[in-house]
């Protein structure tokens, strides 16, 4: 005999009917809510699937700052200039393997005997991405505009400072006349812009090159999209004079947070991440489908010592410690520092101890001190140097200069650079070992910049990214670079040395003798090292990672051991090879659908639940 279990019916209220029908109403509403949620989720599936179609080979790169301007005349940020290198070529670039001058738009170049006239011959048959021919007129127009319009000179004006005239002799020949010979004519990688598009512009200070897409350019890619503050998209340019890139599309996506970039890489949302910290690089090492690239750095990290801030006229200002004018003290400071320790503590081993001003990745200019010239780590020797020079130790171990000033120095450290912050306390300790008390001030970069320009510092952290042509970073230490009045200057040390200036002029004029130029630059580094005003500590490695299931290979610069992002050229992107089964970057995946569906169900279901639910009540309460 089967037992029929009666369906449970809630006890009827005192009036019987309303309770039961109320229950049925509640149940019906809940079912309806459930159906609506699932229906919405289901509706998302086809829409999502449509969006998930892969679009050919796409690389997604995580960037740390949005683009400030797409105009090469105005852009200052590294991301902007990096994108410009991919969409505009200059006359001469840098070879991907050796960093030597490499023909880009110009296939050959020739200086005159006196070095004042340079003749560039452009390649034949080049076209802008819109089909117009690329001629020497475009180059002449670009340079002349930079020379004449101060807005157009905002970003790259220093390249044309020494230009007298830039003229196109014919379609393929450009003649540049200089005021004085300069060797940096071999590194003319200023983007050349299309005259037929840009001559229409009224005000270069206003024009950000972001009104019409695709943007007309000459490089292996063209800019096809720009979501301000979110992403920039470039696509392969079929009219490029060289090999058309294998990646059809590259998207640069902005991530405010470095950790979020790494998470996106793990997930496969981005293909390339750069600027990793040592900890991040370690955590990505050995991960499946991720390749970590450790490259010799372009940057050096250093601190400069205040040797007595002064203007070009020799007027002194600021309040640097007077004892720092003594070279012996400065050299003792260098001798007390153990750079290996800095490499281990601040960089987890991902750096090189440094001595020369030019990083080792530029073997032509790299210099190392030898023998007695080397200020190797030796606290005993440092102590002896100071004892012999008359710096007596007081009772508390702090020395006094022969003039009676206690050696109490201030050190200004950028609070937004974790590596400087990590290294600063070590410096404080090492200098305490030789009787110098250092007060480490971790400050806002703005405060630090003010301290530098007012001469109100003793030790101050700094660092520069050095280009394959190191002229600029060498030039900031000439006497010319001193400020005319106390205030902003481009350099970071009030360094002024006649011999150095002479050598600087020599290297700049040595346009026809690269070996002599290299030799001169090495001598300049020797002077900087000996004077110990600019104290170079490390060359930090560049740490990057990419997904090997999306990118089979990328061209480093230099090769081997170079970096992929931030190159002097477009080689890593134009020469990148997609992995076999790559399906590209962002798009709605199955996981995404599940995520949205889950969220919808939670929100709708929860809302209905909260609104419809009645507390279970007893009969008398109901009354």
């Amino acid at each position, binding site marked *: 005999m089967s037992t029929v279990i009666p369906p449970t019916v809630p006890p009827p209220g005192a009036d019987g009917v309303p309770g039961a029908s109320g229950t049925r109403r509640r149940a019906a509403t809940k079912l309806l809510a459930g159906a609506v949620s699932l229906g919405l989720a289901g509706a998302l599936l086809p829409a999502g699937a449509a969006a998930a179609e892969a679009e050919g080979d796409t690389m997604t790169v995580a960037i740390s700052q*949005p683009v400030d301007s797409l105009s090469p005349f105005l852009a200052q940020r590294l991301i902007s200039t990096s994108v410009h290198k991919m969409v505009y070529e200059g006359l001469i670039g840098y070879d991907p393997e050796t960093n030597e001058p490499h023909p880009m738009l110009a296939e050959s170049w020739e200086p005159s005997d006196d070095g004042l006239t340079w003749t560039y011959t452009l390649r034949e048959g080049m076209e802008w991405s819109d089909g117009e021919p690329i001629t020497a007129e475009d180059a002449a127009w670009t340079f002349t505009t930079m020379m004449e319009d101060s807005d157009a000179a905002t970003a790259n004006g220093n390249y044309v400072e020494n230009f007298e005239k830039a003229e196109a002799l014919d379609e393929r020949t450009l003649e540049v006349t200089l005021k004085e010979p300069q060797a940096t004519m071999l590194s003319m990688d200023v983007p050349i812009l299309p005259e037929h598009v840009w001559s229409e512009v009224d005000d270069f200070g206003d024009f950000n090159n972001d009104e019409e897409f695709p943007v007309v350019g000459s490089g292996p890619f063209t800019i096809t999209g720009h979501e301000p503050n*979110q992403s920039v998209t470039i696509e392969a340019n079929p009219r490029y004079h060289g090999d058309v890139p294998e990646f059809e599309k590259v998207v640069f996506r902005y*991530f*405010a947070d470095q950790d979020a970039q790494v998470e996106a890489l793990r997930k496969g949302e981005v293909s390339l991440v750069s600027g990793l910290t040592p900890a991040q690089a370690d955590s990505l090492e050995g991960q499946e489908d991720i390749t970590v690239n450790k490259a010799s750095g372009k940057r050096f990290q250093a601190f400069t010592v205040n040797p007595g801030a002064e203007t070009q006229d020799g007027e002194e200002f600021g309040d640097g410690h007077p004892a720092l004018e003594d070279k012996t003290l400065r050299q003792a400071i260098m001798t007390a520092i153990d750079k290996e320790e800095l490499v281990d503590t601040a960089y987890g081993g991902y750096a090189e101890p440094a001595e020369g001003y030019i990083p080792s990745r530029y073997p032509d200019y790299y210099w190392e001190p030898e023998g007695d010239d080397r200020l190797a780590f030796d606290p005993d020797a440092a102590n002896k140097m100071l004892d012999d020079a008359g710096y007596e130790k007081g009772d508390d171990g702090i020395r006094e200069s022969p003039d009676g000033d206690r050696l109490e120095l201030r050190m200004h450290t950028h609070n937004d650079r974790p590596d400087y912050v990590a290294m600063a306390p070590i410096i404080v300790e090492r200098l305490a070992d030789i009787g110098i008390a250092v007060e480490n001030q971790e400050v*806002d970069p703005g405060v630090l910049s003010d301290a530098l320009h007012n001469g109100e510092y003793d030790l101050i952290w700094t660092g520069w990214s050095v280009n394959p042509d190191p002229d600029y970073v060498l030039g900031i230490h000439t006497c010319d670079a001193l400020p005319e009045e106390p205030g*902003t200057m481009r350099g970071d040390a009030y360094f002024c040395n006649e011999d150095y200036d002479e050598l600087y002029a020599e290297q700049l004029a040595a346009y026809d003798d690269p070996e002599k130029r290299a030799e001169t630059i090495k001598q300049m580094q020797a002077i900087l090292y000996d004077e110990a005003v600019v104290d170079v500590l490390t060359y930090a490695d560049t740490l990057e990672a990419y997904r090997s299931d999306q990118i089979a290979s990328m061209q480093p610069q230099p090769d081997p051991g170079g970096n992929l992002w931030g190159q002097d050229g477009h080689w890593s992107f134009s020469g990148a090879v997609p992995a076999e089964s790559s399906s590209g970057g962002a798009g709605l995946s199955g996981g995404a659908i*599940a*995520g949205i569906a889950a969220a919808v169900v939670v929100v709708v279901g929860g809302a209905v639940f909260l609104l419809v639910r009645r507390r279970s009540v007893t009969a008398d309460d*109901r009354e």
Partner: protein
Amino acid sequence: MTDTPTAGAAPPAPDAAPGARPRAGRVLRYLGGRLLTAAVSLAAVMVTSFFLFRILPGDPVAAMTEGREVSVEQMEALRREFGLDQPLWRQFLDYCAGMLRLDLGVSYEFHRPVAELVAERIGPTVLLAGTGTLIAAALGLVLGTRAAWRRGSLGDRVNSSVALLLWSVPSFWLGLLLIVVLASGTGWLPGLFPTSGMMSADTAGGLDTAIDVAHHMVLPVATMVAVVYAQYLMIMRSSVLDEMGSDYLTTARAKGLRDDLVLRRHAVPNALLPTVTLIFLNLGRVFGGVILIETVFAWPGLGSLFYSGLKVPDLPLVQALFVIFASAVIIMNLLADLVYPLLDPRVRT
């Protein structure tokens, strides 16, 4: 002819409504007073904004060109372009004149009018913060009411504790945690949401883009709601608790009304008043209130714009944004002051 006394010589007709004239006057005075206060506040904000950011250390030109190969001439040209070579009083007058003309200036870094940058970024911020505020308010209201009605129960204690716990958590920490757990996935849990940004770069537009944005919005909104809903919950809870002891509720129960009708139709509407004020005030903070969340999720809104502008400092940009953020709060305060008497007759003096 009999001279009848003007029997109908009624006493002088009283004014149509004895209290109306003075009452309208009172309202106008109240309104006028509030508007004047708001205007004075706005003026003070404008002046403060100018001087506040000029106190910040650092030179915008040096910060913008840091590490770049620029000559001294280029830096001087930039300084002239930005008007930074003028004496301070001159810059202040230019600034005031600009503000009165509603000209917000040109950003140093982006070389675009600030008004354009704001217009671009205001949508994402309002979308994120507005949605977050509304959801947090709704959630807080409902949960607060339930908690108060069953004060002391396990549900109440759990609700309040969870809300306060989340309230005390820093928003950027929670955001990063959600990114790690839900966006990149841990262990067997797959990544369900994008790690950052407002949309993917290659959506087709229309419904696709809307769904994409919604997908990106889940984590930032969840973070915001989680750290903020406790406000609404606690205020609603305490308002309802206040109401619960009232006589009129006892009357309602005595009349035989069901418990939840008593709650919904009598207690809650009265308890809502403080929460309404809170909602208005928080809506005023919609523009500037989500800076940390926008930064962590790279959400392209006003908050992250302000944060990046501060680092230079991009003076026209941060000045204008500061004035906008403060104005929103002032205006919503004003509205709250004006709306409250309409909602609560007891307040009308």
